[in-house]
């Protein structure tokens, strides 16, 4: 069975400070993991993905995530938040065959000036 838990429903940071969005997963198989971002009234955009290659994954817009099997985590980070980062972020797990995707409940990121 697969599942994803996003530990924070809301995160608020000041512009220029680091961002940490937490994600824990449960998977019966070697999973692939993704982070997507959803801006208001816009479609889901892929930020980055882990598919059993390097455990530290770099994505678009300065985001990165580290796959930690021992902790079953895939936290999303960014060194310095920008106002344009304000959006909802979803962590996603899928088994090796990509046949079924499980989304977390989402984390809304607020960036204060």
């Amino acid at each position, binding site marked *: 069975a697969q599942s994803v838990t996003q530990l924070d429903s809301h995160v608020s940071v000041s512009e220029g400070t680091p961002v940490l969005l937490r994600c824990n997963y449960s998977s019966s198989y070697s999973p692939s993991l993704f982070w997507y971002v959803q801006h208001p009234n*816009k479609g889901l955009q892929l930020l980055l993905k882990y598919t059993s290659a390097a455990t530290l994954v770099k994505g678009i817009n300065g985001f990165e995530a580290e796959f930690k099997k021992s902790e079953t985590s895939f936290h999303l980070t960014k060194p310095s938040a920008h106002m344009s980062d304000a959006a909802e972020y979803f962590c996603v797990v899928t088994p090796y065959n990509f*046949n079924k995707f499980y*989304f977390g409940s989402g984390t809304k990121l607020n960036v204060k000036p």
Partner: protein
Amino acid sequence: DAGVTQSPTHLIKTRGQQVTLRCSPKSGHDTVSWYQQALGQGPQFIFQYYEEEERQRGNFPDRFSGHQFPNYSSELNVNALLLGDSALYLCASSLDGGGSSYEQYFGPGTRLTVT
């Protein structure tokens, strides 16, 4: 190159009616997945179509059915609509067997309101 397109963008239906939503995948993609995103929640997987067959299904009743055409486009049908079916319906496309290069692209969604 057009990405994933969905139609219509908005739809209002009455309880008990039936609805059909449409999706055209990104060029070169052969797999289509459908998701339901209720307000304030993450998308929930409905089913995935590949080679014109339903390959995988989430926890949705049989009122939800789909179809994939030879050109890889897809339809989602919902019968006997309930108020709880009100949601954003997302279509996503991908290329089967992508391995480490696998990516799933999402369309903008169809907002369904059931009154």
